Each structure stands twice: as C-alpha cells, then as structure tokens.
C-alpha cells in the first residue's frame, strides 16, 4: 500500500509517562550504553567531568526523553533513572 504524502513523512513520539530523566553524575563510569541505545536519540555526553573523570550523559533537550526507561535498565551503574514528576501522574 503506498503511503500518502500530504502528511509530512514524520513519526510522532509521545511521552510514555510524566517522568523526569535523572542522572547521578558521580556514579557514571562512562560506558555510553544509555546514549547509544536510547531509541529516540535523546542523550549526549555532557561537557563536564565527574569525580571519575568521565563525561556523564545529559539530555539533548528538555522534551527529548519520552520516558521508555531503557537507559535506566541498561545502565550498569545505576547512574541513570526516571523520576516521577511531582505534578504528574503515576509512573507507568
């Protein structure tokens, strides 16, 4: 079936949950898993160096994260997690 085109060829990705992306910078050992495997490419290395001398990840932009939680799971160091927003609803 051919795709119609009047719609721009975009993919919309909605936030899965009202969550805030958090990093415990000093826990990060710099493996880069979260950046590599983020499905929406929301993360990048930050400029700063942490206590272990690596660049912990940061969000590319405020609303880049859709809250899928893969980074939280794949981080071997418990450095990255999602936090339920105070105002928002339940996580998951």
């Amino acid at each position, binding site marked *: *079936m*051919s795709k119609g085109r009047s*719609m721009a060829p975009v*993919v919309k990705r909605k936030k899965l949950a009202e969550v805030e992306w958090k990093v415990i910078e000093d826990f990060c050992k710099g493996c880069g898993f979260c950046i590599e495997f983020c499905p929406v490419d929301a993360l990048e290395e930050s400029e700063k160096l942490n206590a272990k001398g690596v660049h912990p990840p940061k969000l590319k932009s405020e609303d880049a994260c859709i809250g*899928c939680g893969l980074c939280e799971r794949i981080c071997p160091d418990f450095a990255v997690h999602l936090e339920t927003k105070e105002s928002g609803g339940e996580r998951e």
Partner: protein
Amino acid sequence: MESSVRIGVYICHCGGNISDTVNVEKVREAISKLEGVKTVETVDYLCSTQGQGKIKSGIKEYGINRVVVASCSPQLHLATFRRAVSEAGLNPYLLEMANIREHCSWVHDNIEEATAKAIDIIRGAVNRVKYLEELHPIKTKVKREVLVIGSGITGIQSALEMADKGYQVHLVERDPCIGGHMAQLSETFPTLDCSYCILAPRMVSVSQHPKIKIYTMAEPVALKGVPGDYVVTLSVKPRFVDVDKCTGCDDCTDVCPVEVPDEFNMGLTWRKAIYIPFPQGVPRAYALDLDNCLGLEPIACGKCMEVCEPKAINYDMQPEEIELNVGAIIVATGYDQISPNDFGEYSYGMHPDIVTNLQFERIMHFGFHKPSDGKIPRKVAFILCVGSRALQERAKEYCCKIGCMVAIKQAILLKKAVPNVEPWIFYQDVRADGKGYEEFYARAREQGTRFVRGLAAKVLPANDGLIVKAEDTIAGTPVEERFDMVVLSMGITPRPDTEEVSKILGLHTGPDNFFIEKHYKLNPVDSTKEGIFVCGCALGPKDIRESVEEGMAAASRAATFIGLGELATSPEVPIIDRAKCDLCGECIAICPTAAITITKSTITVTPVACITCGACVPACPREAIDQRNVTEKQLIAQIQGASAGETKEPKIIAFIERKTAYASLDLAGTRRLGYVANIRPITVPSCMRIGIKHLINAFAYGADGVVFVEGDDSPFAGEKLLKHVGSLKKELREYEVSPLRLQSMTTTIPQYDKTVKLFETVSARVARLGKITPEERGKIKEKLET
C-alpha cells in the same frame, strides 16, 4: 540403417503455396531415389482429411513405418500429422516434418533454387527418419496444491475458486491483513455497492475455508523445482503478535508512543507502531511495525507487551522461511498508484485539500470533510489522467482505465451527500466502455456534474481555496475557477517489486513493466512459464469486475494444469551411458535447469526439469550422452543429407533453435521476406546441441558455412553461446576450416528481419572465402574418420 525401415514421403502442394515456387514433381523424383524410401506422394492439401488419408493408407498399404511430411511449419501442423500417423497405428515420433513452405517456397522466387533447397531439406529429413525410434511422453505426478501470491480481490477470488474445486490453497500476503486496495474503497461503480460490504464476506470465506491457508507478512523469495512440482520458499516477517491469541482489544495501540501516517487511510490519519491496518482486517490481529517501533534489540519501550492481557505480543518472533510444495502458482500481486509528488503543477503536498482519488475514497468514508478544516466542500474539481496517457518520463503512456469512472462515481456520491455541491470533472475524453458505465456517466451529467474537456494545467493554492487553471478545448476558452478541493486521478503503476518477483519466479515483464501473459489474446492469464498464472492488475490496470474475472480464469487454468494429477513431458531427454560416464560433471555445469544431478555416485536426469536443450551432449568429453529424438545418428544423418546437394552460391547450414528462432524464421516466411536461397535450416533444440563433430560433418559433406540462430529467450543467449561458438571456432582451425565460416546470432520472434539480414551477411562473408574445394573436403572427411 535398419533394413526394415520403410519410408513414406508426402509432399504438399499447399494449393500452390509450395508448388508455385517449388517444382514438386522434380522433388518427388529426386527423393524417390533415396535409400529406404518406399513411396513418395504429392498431395494438394496434405493437412486436409484426404491428405491425411493418403498417409494413413500408405502406412497400411505399403507397410510404411517412417513418415516424412514435406509441407509447412511443424509449429502449425506437427500435432495434426502426429495424430494422423498414430491413428494409423504408427508411433507419432516416427514422423518428421520438412518445412518447405515458410522456410522455402515463401521466401524464394527462383524455382530452381527453391526446388534444390526443398530437395536438400527433405533429404535431410529422410536421412534422419531412418534412425527415428518409437518414443512416449514421460509422465510425472503433479502436486495438487496451489500458491496464490497476493490477496487483493483477484487473489481472494482465485484462492476461493481453487479451494472450492478442492485444491489446497496457500494464500500469501505481504501486508498484515488480506484485502488489498478494494478494502480502501468507499463504493464501487457503477452499482454503488459498498466496496467493503461486498469484499468482507469473501475475506471471511477465505479465512474460514478449510482448504485455504493464509500467510500474512510473507513473500516468496525463491522458487525451485519444476512445473507441477514447485518448491517455493516464503520469507515470513515476524508479526510480533500471535494471531491466535490476539483478541483485537486495542490496549496495545493505546499505550504505543509512536504515531506514523496511516497507509490504509492514505496518510490522512495516524496509526501507532503496533496496529491493525483496518478495523475489520483479516486476520483480525495487530502487527508491530518494526521500522517505526522504538526498537526490539534491545527492547526499548515494551509497553504494548506489558498491557497485552492475552499475552499475544511476542518480541522474540524471528523471520521464518517456509517451504511450500505446490503444483501451480497464481500471481495476483496487484498495482500501485503513481506518486502525485512528481506533478508539481498540481501543487500536491502544498495544500491539504489537494488529494489523490484514493485519498478521496477515504475522505468519503469519513464523511466528506476537507482535510484542512473539516468543513464540507462546496466546489470540488476532479482532474483526470494525472500521470496517465502522457508521453512524459514521469507519466505512463497507458490509460489507467478506472480514473474516469472513479471520478464520476466520486462526483455522484459527493452530490448525493452534499446536494448543493458543484463537482467539476476535467477530462481528456471520458472512457465509459463497461456494462452500465455510459449510463452512469449520463447520470452524473444529469445530476449536474460539470464536465470540462481539457486537462487542468495548474492547481494553485489561494487564500480562500484552490485555483484550477485549464483550457476548455470544446469552447476554446481558458478556465480559471476557485475550488474547495481538488481530487487528482492518479495513474496506475506496477508494484515496485514486480521486476524482483518476476526474477524469483522466472517470469517476464513487458515494456509497461507489468507481467506479460503467454499470449495476449489466447493465453491471457498464463505466464511465460509453465504452471505459473498471472491475473488482475499484476498484468495491467483493471476494474474490480475484470480483476475478479481474471482471478477466476487463472484458477481455472491452474486447475486444468494440476487437475489430472500428472503431467506429460517430452521424452527428448538426455540418455547417459553409465559405462562411459566418469562423473566429471561437465554436463551438470552446462545444464541450465539443474536437471542432471550426481547422487551416490550415479548420474541422474530429472525429465520434468529438463528443457531438452541438448547442451549436455556435446559438452560431454567422453561422448557418454545422447539425446532422445535428437540422437547423434539422427542429427549427423540429417546434416549430411541437407549438405549434399549442389548450390550455386556457397552452401550455408543454419542450425535453428526450435522455439523462438524457428518462429522468427517462420514469421519471415509468413511475411514473404525473401532471402538468399543457399541457406539450409536444420531445427535443433538449441544451438548448444551442436558440437564440432556436427560442424565437421557439415563441412565434409557439402556445407561452406554454418550459422547458429538462437532465440533471445534461450538460457544460453549471450555469454554462454558466445563461449561455445568461440571454442568451436578454435577447434575448426584444427580441421583447417576458417573460423569465419561459423557465425552465430540471437534473435527474437519480431526481429525476423534481423535474422534474415544475418543470412545475407553470412552468405556474403562465406562467399568471400569461397567454396570449400573437393580436395579440402576430402581432407576434412579423412580427419573426421580418424
């Protein structure tokens, strides 16, 4: 030659078609003198009942046990005469035809030359029949199962027909659900039935039919085996949803965070990365669109699986390959619309209210709202032939066949839904050639649809709508009107992977890139390959009724093909002398269909796979292979016979591949295209059947040149034949024969003029080399005998 051989030769006048140019009586005299010939008769029309009666009585009266019919092309009458001799109790393979009409009388003017040629041709045939053997077709079992590729209305119809006839059907669909384009349509012309309402019951029948197995998200990737016994490899993409467990509850789509334009609604709405193409889809199960899903390696989101209560979602599904063993294949892969993006003058994509006709089908389904603001349009322009009937690179030359009627239908429906609407149709000419179509067209006019003859030149988005600029070619005045919506009737194009499918299945496509049928008129749903049938829009644009007809026709043809449960194949297969064979594998290397195999240190030929090309015979370094009905003895005898007679010009033996090349030469005859008379055609299964031994025999017994004519569709056309000819030329040098005396070409049926031109060229070239002197021939003969 066996002394028991008693040859009867029957020469046809063909009511002057032959006898006007060939001195039949002289021929009769010459042939009568040949060894083993018991009777030579000339008949006015040999193909007539009386003519056939002559042959039959000859068999009975004179004990004739080999028959030569010198008449027209065997492509016309071989079956006729075979039937005749077999009615007289003679094995049909003991008959040989000498074509002295298409290959002789029709292409030459000089009676003397034509007569000499006819004698040579018949002498060759007489020599050959001395060695003919009784043969019987080889029978093979066929699988009484059929594969239907594509599950639009055509494929559905084919599948149902086959299944109802009792055959097991495997229905393959690339999308997650069956139904095809018809499921997208609102109502159908000219009856205004609800498209989905008439399609749905058939979809349900297919899904519930005990003889139909549906494979969605699957496509064929390889074809092995032989007609009647095909093995098709299907590649099945993972759906990631267990069809049996899915209840269609929609929980998964609710949580899916990804939205992409909905293909089924032509991008007018959004769907999720896990979706069902349309709510009543069959099978009624969701599918995960891996291209848009956040990812499974590793699983990034996983929400749909979390919420799926029946645990139907399984991210670990893997692509599968399934092998199906079927007797026949029906290809019903359908069509696509061409892309509106190539037609900038219509500003598609610049304004949401410029839509394609297929999009408009969906808009009608949703209630005639404009995509831009959801309001009901008051004035709608339908522009026909966008990308059809135009000699532009971006467009198709052919007519889309349904655009007129679709636009008329849409205008009628629009008018019905929005009584005060103004539909305008911009057309070149309205083609309403189906049953009830003209009436339908009239109805639209009566209801107030404006028909403007003249294609729109431009569509421009304006502040308060869309401006269409056109020229009314009847009034001869320019038109510039404001519309609320513009509907573009898009041209139709083959599916983009048609070429790929044709390669996989071994089919052919035409200049329009649709599949081609075996015969445009007489075999409209047979493909170019045995046991494979094509139907519906895979062959070209069609409306629903025609598609259904073809679906039924293809089913009927497939049923005929596999219905008897067995196939008779030609006995002209290679025979291997196992005492001589050292299993070197040369024959296997040259065989184009892998019909020869070595298993457990014996070599075997699979008759049904064999295309009887004979290439393996000269390829065998140990001369361990011979071919039935084209045996070495038969072939050499024929070559010697055809080479024998004297000619003024140097004599050329032309080995004609028996299908395409032969038909091409026949066509030259039919068109009375005269050419040099020193050509002596000998029919061969393929030019690869001819080895050095045959060439040398020709040169030793009277030929001065040899030409190979191979059909362009032969598996050897190109590289392989050139290589073969190259090595033959090298070998010719060893016999001190100039390699320039051997030429080859490939041709197609319509290129008969090219074929004939080659004869002229070769003839001239050989003439420059001169005839081979009797001394030289003596030497060649000596070498041949040692």
